[in-house]
């Protein structure tokens, strides 16, 4: 008897479990299904939305980072060369005399440069004056030989010089020519100048020049009109800036 009663009880319990409200398991089952359905529906909707969104421009994310601004420092151009020197100038008929000169150069390219020279010397006595004792052809002020020139130069033979085994210095040979003027014996004359020089650079900003220039001008100072050649030799130091 026990087994049919047991079966009945079991069947009743099962029935009750299936039909009674508040049963978590069953509810959960049905509820789970519903949720899944809802989820799939929402996913489909989202996909549709995404498809729609593809046609409209995507949202750009603005990074909250300041863009690095690069300020380019100005590059120093070192094409100017300024210096001064000492040497000798042979003033035709007036002997060879010491001279002081300044020079400024602008290097246009590797090969060419513009140069300005300004110098002053004092002329000595002519042989006529020396032989005649107290004869003075020119006054003290008139003996001043002041000259300047504007030239175009060409770096002719760039190279290096070697001092011993360990020191190499950049050097260069250059030729130049130009126009200028000379104030001498109470008169100012147009001059043509041409010459050549040698330059050695112990460092990149310092140069030592040894140059020779001829300054040619017309004069009638000693009676007859003639062309005079006044050769100047100058040792100078310049600085690049």
């Amino acid at each position, binding site marked *: 008897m026990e087994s049919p009663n047991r079966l009945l009880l079991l069947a009743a319990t099962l029935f009750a479990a299936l039909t009674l409200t508040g049963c978590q398991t069953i509810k959960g089952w049905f509820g789970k299904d519903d949720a899944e359905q809802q989820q799939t529906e929402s996913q489909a909707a989202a996909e549709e939305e995404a498809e729609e969104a593809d046609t409209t421009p995507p949202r750009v994310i603005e990074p909250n980072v300041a863009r690095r601004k690069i300020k380019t420092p100005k*590059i*120093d*151009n070192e094409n100017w060369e300024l210096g001064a020197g000492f040497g000798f100038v042979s003033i035709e008929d007036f002997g060879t005399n010491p001279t002081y000169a300044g020079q400024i150069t*602008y290097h246009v390219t*590797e090969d060419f440069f513009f140069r300005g020279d300004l110098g002053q010397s004092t002329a000595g006595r002519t042989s006529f004056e020396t032989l005649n004792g107290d004869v003075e052809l020119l006054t003290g002020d008139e003996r001043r030989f002041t000259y300047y020139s504007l030239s175009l130069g060409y770096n002719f033979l*760039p190279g*290096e010089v070697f001092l011993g085994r360990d020191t190499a210095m*950049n050097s*260069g040979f250059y030729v130049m020519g130009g126009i200028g003027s000379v104030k001498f014996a109470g008169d*100012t004359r147009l001059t043509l100048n041409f010459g050549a020089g040698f330059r050695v650079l112990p460092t990149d900003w310092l140069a030592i020049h040894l140059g020779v220039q001829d300054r040619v001008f017309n004069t009638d100072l000693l009676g007859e009109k003639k062309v005079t050649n006044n050769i100047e030799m100058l040792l100078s130091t310049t600085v690049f800036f």
Partner: protein
Amino acid sequence: MEPSITTTRSRQLRRTSLALALVFACSLSATVLAKETEAEKAAKEQAAQEKLLQVFVSEPYLELSTGPGRGYPVFRVVERDASVDVLYRRTDWFKVRDEHGIEGWARARDMRRTKLADGSPFVFNLGDRDGFTSHDWEIGIGGGDYGGAHMINAYGAYSLTDNMKIEVTISQYLGNASNGYKAEAGLTHVIVPEWRISPFLELGTGVVWVKPNATIVLPEDRTDQTAYVGAGVRYYLTRRFFVRADYRWHTIFTSRDDNEELEEWKVLIACFF
């Protein structure tokens, strides 16, 4: 083959010498590395202090020469992606310092192919035809004729725009009747700066110092104001050079009853930068 005694001995010797060499090499490389890092540090510190421009090599390598000229030997190469600090420029060469603190000269043409830290190309004026059209400064020297007297000129100009320039001219003239100097400032208008042969107009004022020659009776130095209008043409030669020729018509405001009028012609060789 059994190893002989001598072979074993020599092997042992080789090993010890190898070990010694290894130790020596390690210490040497360590010191070299230490030195390099010190040099690098020094270079970096110096660069930071001087606020130098840093550029990066984007070609396979950048050559550094011993001097700013085409003949000077290349003594070092800086590899791709390495940087150099730009110290200064002389004509078409840049003095640069690499990451190891070694300084050398790099040509402008190669520097044009380097990049800045943000990847943009390193741009600077190269001194070519474009520079003729658009530049800041120009200087020139030349000669001509000023009312029958020989004249020597030097001028400098600053570009306000490609068309408009402020110009200062200093001249000395040497004539039969008088010598003197003049200094003038004015505006120059280049009509079409892009043209290789480019006409321009000018207008300005200045001061003229007249020193009559001693042979004329009652010589007296005088200073007068002058004004000019003129026209000319500039012709681009090559690189940074051009030739300019112009005509100026001067009015000199003398202290006498009549103003003096003078014509001036001149030709100058000039450069821009």
